[in-house]
């Protein structure tokens, strides 16, 4: 089955990229799908708890309007509201589509889809497949896209990494350059439009809940070629992760959605086993402070509370850890509804959470910021689109749990028709495209050659660790301007030292040293965007918290931060937020929900 003409390149094969690929193939066009790993192994598999959609099967009077309100309120009024509304309206259809694709969602006695509660809402709105929902949704799209692959509509380039865009003389995107990670061969991909769907940049923080592929490198390349990057400073730190040597493993919010309780011993010197500490000697600090939402306050709030409790010395055994307790729930219920995540904990820590309270601490998890897009997922570069975590559009200053999966699919479903519409109307092979692919290919090859020939004393993996540490220490839960300034200076120092790395690998076949060097450079650029965005925003909103500026300042900062690349430093500007649907109000989760609609 031949396609009817258009060729669209998609970078990234997670939920957003595959959603777009499926729609484009279905519309009769051809897709080149470029992914650093086989798409079935994309980071979407790590999403655990579920996908939000106001299907309202529990007689709670839930509606897309309430989903919209929860999302923009949870996001502390930094998201443009029209696309959020469109996502919430589409969400029930998205869940039904996955149901039709055969996703083994958990079901009710009647055989209907079951829903559970997640943070930042009072409704049961989250459809789930055990506790590996992201994996199950990704697999469903992977299967559908594989079908299109057998029909010649989708060409997969797995094990390829995008290095740069190919732009013509008018700054119009005409394709991209990618590198085969086995041979290091560079290839130019001509395309009528390019959709970025590469996920988040968690590796900038060294250890995070992200997969090792989440470098943000390709997005950073777009930024360095003129794409705007928005709200970079909004980094979600998940309240509950399992600290590890190599990464911070996620402990899903669904653990609290199913009734998990967060506590510490009231007596900080209490050395008893948690099971032996009686109820009245436990401090359930979230439930005490937020009686309506309890353990299910939004993530930024839960994270700050846990962080603060530990900072004040109340952490379990005086360390940076609190209990997340499920032991009051019957083991068989936990196994069915949370099995996958409890296995992860048991596998890596050695305790069975069905019988022993888990020890958890916050960890970098998600970027609300990303490539700037308009309401049709178009970036400021004509021909370049973005969807999923790598775009900034939906979550404002803080993302609600189980909204990421739905935003990925919404983004892909919106970017696909938008890219098709654009591609139909451009002049193809027009003047100015001659030779641009060859020229960009040459430029990228020269960068590779330079990296390979460098013989310095610096070790790139050690530099990466230094970046991760300074970013985690200064640009996560609590932010101070002097430390942000010092962080930027450190990043500049690392940029300088990067010029003196040696890749330490004489065998270039399938080497990981050259790709890592390129990723690391790109991460440094985005790290500056995150840090300077935070420095400039003198207020506290959602995940961005400055003790010196503890209040939200709508007058000066109910604005989207826009970063544009320059050789010296990111150039920051601000754009008003479209709050035409839900009037901004103060966020307060200590009481029941304040009225809006």
């Amino acid at each position: 089955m031949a396609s009817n003409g258009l060729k669209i390149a998609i970078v990234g094969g997670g939920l957003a990229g595959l959603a777009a690929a499926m729609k484009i193939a279905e519309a009769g066009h051809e897709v080149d799908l470029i992914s650093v790993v086989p798409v079935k192994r994309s980071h979407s598999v790590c999403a655990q708890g579920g996908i939000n959609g106001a299907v309202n099967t529990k007689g709670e009077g839930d509606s897309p309007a309430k989903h919209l309100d929860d999302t923009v309120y949870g996001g502390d009024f930094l998201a443009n509201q029209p696309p959020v509304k469109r996502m919430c309206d589409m969400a029930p259809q998205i869940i039904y589509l996955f149901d039709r694709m055969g996703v083994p969602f958990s079901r009710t006695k009647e055989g209907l889809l079951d829903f559970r509660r997640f943070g930042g809402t009072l409704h049961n709105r989250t459809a789930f497949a055990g506790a590996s929902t992201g994996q199950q949704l990704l697999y469903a799209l992977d299967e559908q896209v594989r079908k299109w692959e057998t029909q010649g509509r989708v060409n997969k380039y797995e094990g390829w990494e995008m290095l740069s865009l190919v732009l013509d003389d008018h700054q119009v995107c005409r394709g991209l350059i990618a590198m085969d990670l086995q041979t290091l061969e560079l290839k130019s991909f001509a395309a009528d439009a390019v959709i970025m769907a590469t996920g988040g940049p968690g590796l900038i923080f060294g250890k995070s809940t992200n997969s090792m592929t989440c470098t943000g490198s390709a997005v950073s390349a777009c930024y360095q070629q003129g794409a705007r990057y928005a709200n970079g400073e909004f980094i979600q730190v998940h309240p509950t992760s399992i600290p590890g040597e190599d990464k911070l493993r996620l402990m899903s919010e669904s653990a609290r959605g199913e009734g998990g309780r967060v506590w510490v011993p009231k007596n900080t010197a209490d050395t008893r086993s948690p099971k032996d500490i009686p109820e009245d000697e436990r401090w359930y600090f979230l439930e005490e402070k937020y009686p309506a939402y309890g353990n299910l306050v939004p993530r930024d709030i839960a994270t700050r509370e846990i962080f603060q409790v530990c900072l004040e010395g109340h952490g379990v055994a005086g360390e940076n850890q609190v209990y997340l307790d499920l032991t009051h729930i019957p083991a068989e219920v936990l196994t069915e509804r949370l099995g996958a995540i409890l296995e992860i904990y048991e596998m890596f820590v050695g305790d069975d959470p069905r019988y022993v309270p888990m020890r958890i601490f916050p960890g970098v998890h998600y970027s609300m910021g990303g490539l700037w897009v308009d309401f049709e997922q178009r970036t400021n570069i004509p021909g370049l689109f973005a969807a999923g975590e790598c775009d900034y559009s939906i979550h404002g200053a803080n993302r609600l749990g189980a909204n990421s999966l739905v935003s990925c699919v919404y983004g892909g479903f919106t970017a696909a028709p938008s890219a098709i519409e654009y591609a139909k109307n451009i002049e193809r092979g027009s003047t100015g495209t001659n030779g641009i692919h060859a020229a960009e290919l040459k430029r990228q090859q020269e960068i590779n050659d330079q990296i390979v020939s460098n013989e310095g004393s610096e070790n790139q993996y050690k530099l990466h660790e230094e970046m991760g540490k300074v970013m985690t220490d200064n640009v996560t839960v609590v932010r101070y301007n002097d430390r942000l300034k010092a962080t930027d200076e450190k990043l500049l120092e690392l940029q300088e030292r990067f010029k003196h790395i040696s890749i330490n690998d004489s065998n270039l076949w399938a080497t990981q040293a050259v790709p890592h060097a390129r990723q690391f450079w790109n991460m440094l650029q985005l790290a500056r965007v995150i840090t300077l965005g935070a420095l400039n925003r003198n207020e506290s909103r959602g995940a961005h918290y400055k003790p010196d500026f503890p209040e939200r300042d709508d007058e000066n900062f109910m604005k989207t931060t826009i970063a544009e690349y320059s050789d010296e430093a990111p150039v920051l500007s601000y754009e008003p937020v479209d709050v035409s649907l839900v009037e901004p109000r103060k966020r307060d989760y200590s009481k029941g929900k304040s009225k809006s609609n």
Partner: protein
Amino acid sequence: MSETKGHREKKRLENPPSTVKFKIQRREKEGAASHWDTFEIPYRRNLNVISALMEIRKNPVTVEGKTTTPPVWDMSCLEQVCGICTMVIDGRVRQSCSALVDDLLLDTGSDTVTLAPMSKFPNVRDLKVDRSKMFDHLKQVHAWIELDGTYDLGPGPHIPNETAQERYALSRCMTCGCCLEACPQYSNDQYIGPQAIAQARLFNMHPTGKITTEERLNGLLGDDGITNCGDAQNCVKVCPMSIPLTKAIYETNRDVTVNALFGWLRK
């Protein structure tokens, strides 16, 4: 081991060594000869094989003091859900992210961990292999639901939760290749292997998927088909997701037989 409410407490390494050795099988590229390098790193608690490899990569010097190339391996999620980091560790195929060094040392009673690439797939370099064949197998068995379109057609069919849970167990397959590495029948192109058969079963169990059962079974009738299963049952022992692979093979075999006997009636 103490026990409370059916909960067994894990046995832990009591007297860890001060350093741990990693004996790694190296290969420059596909087709090149292989050799072994041994590296030594300081012992730390909570070390897994991946963090040990990261440590070695930073400074790849062998125990003999020879500077060599950094070992190459695949990794991504580090939560045993993407399947990419599979390798043979102390003789057993598994994911390297969830292989905790304490447990390995406890099991072998030594201070050395041995790492080798999976042997049933092309060895790209060091510990990295190419498993694209497994994805081809998924094409061969039409491992998907046929949709009329992705536009809004309302919810899918009613499904009992028991069926959903049974399907979920099969649907957790991350195409890691453990079952194929352990299967004595799987080599070259002689047998499609457990993973693809279980995926065929996954879709044949779905009310919509049932409609195209025959297409999936057709993919299992060739020379490399389901009848090659020798019932060694190694697959189910090594599957990291505890997928009931032998049950799926048994049930699919039954469907194949029924289809062969009665399929012509529908023609």
